[in-house]
């Protein structure tokens, strides 16, 4: 069982009962981002659909970081989450 800490953006806190940080337990030894997001979507469906669309893709203007790195610059949702490294979900700089 891997345990991952996830930082929740303030704007999405209402979707996870007001939490700004969630402790996600992922079955198995290691965790990839996809598994972390799967658990989050299972436990918090409204939050889950705000992060990923029906195809399971991270929304265009949503960013997921593992530590300091955007998963779009790594292996996407297959990016592994090393022990002790936080996952941070943030909205991108977009809009007008």
């Amino acid at each position: 069982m891997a345990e991952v800490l996830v930082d929740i953006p303030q704007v999405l806190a209402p979707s996870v009962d007001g939490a700004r940080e969630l402790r996600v337990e992922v079955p198995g030894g290691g965790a990839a981002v996809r598994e972390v997001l799967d658990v989050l979507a299972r436990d918090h469906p409204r939050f889950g659909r705000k992060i990923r669309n029906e195809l399971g893709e991270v929304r265009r203007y949503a960013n997921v970081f593992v530590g300091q790195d955007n998963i779009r610059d790594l292996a996407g949702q297959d990016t592994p989450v090393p022990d002790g490294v936080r996952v941070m979900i943030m909205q991108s700089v977009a809009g007008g």
Partner: protein
Amino acid sequence: MSTPETATADTMVLLAIGTKKGLFLAASEDRVNWTLSDPHFLILEASSVAIDTRNGAPRVLAGLLDWHWGPTVVTSDDLGATWSDPEQGAIKFPEDTGAALERVWHLRPDAASRPGVVWAGAEPHSLWRSEDGGSTFELNRGLWDHPQRKSWQPGGGGPCLHTVDPDPDSEQIHIAASAAGVYRSDDGGATWEAANRGISAGFLPGEEPEYGQCVHRIARDAEQPGRLYAQNHGGVYRSDDAGRKWVSIADGLPGDFGFTFLTHPRIGGTGWVIPMIADIERIPSGARVSVYKTADGGDTWTENHTGLPDQDFNTILRDASAVDDHPDSTGVYFGTRAGEVYASADEGATFTQVAQRLPDVLSVRAAVVPKTDLPQGSEQYVPQFPEE
């Protein structure tokens, strides 16, 4: 002829205004003086709105797009005091479609004879049907699986299905999509066929195609079965046979481009358009916004300009106009990309301003509802100007 709501001293008109950055509600007893709510969902795009009065208490529906966190449909049964956003989302493409919802362009409560049924038109091109008043929707497979759908092209706004028009007295339904055209179902949505004969597609080479027209709006005549009207991307049309053949009714209008076609809820042959100059300018004809009314099925048109700006370079978008169901005189409403909203209490003869300097107006709907105060936070709309 449909039965109007009964307007009494206990009623008001509720106006739902979806904008690029939030949803506003407005209420008025005389349709001249309005109370405007604070914005709901400020910063979210309210691409589509609807007011469902079939069950007595009005339900307000809104198709929202959060550019960061995705689209959804929300509902309120207390004029926006509280909103419902289903945990799983109201609209969700089935896994086998390989598609994901981008935007809800249109929400349309069905006839009173089909309570609970609400239609939604969405992007990518798709039609959705709800049986629980808009809380959850199911994809219309008949249209999704239509062999022509995959070759439909996106319009400038995207691959959107933007109009749903069910016949209240039969199983017939018409939809319009950019740039696919009009499609008709005679069996409640099980099967569909293109219904564009006579509608021009000047942006395509060769002969008039069976489909691919860029129809901007369709509306059903209140009294004559099978009569519909269309505002096309170049061309204003009428069909008297449920869309099997369309004829031009653009004579008498200053322009045949636009996004609006409204029909009277009770009186046949009566409708309104807001003409614009071709697709190369896309502003009101002569930069003078006017509402043109017909009372004879489009054979003749009368300009109505009283109360409207003499100079306006802003577009009125396809969902940003509406009529109400007031029994004395139908109200006509529209909003502009400059964030101005206008109301007419006399069937389009004269207009007054409901609001100004809102974000771009994307969607407008109006209905007669029981009189009540708008929820806390609302305030009398008074234009605010800096002190000199």
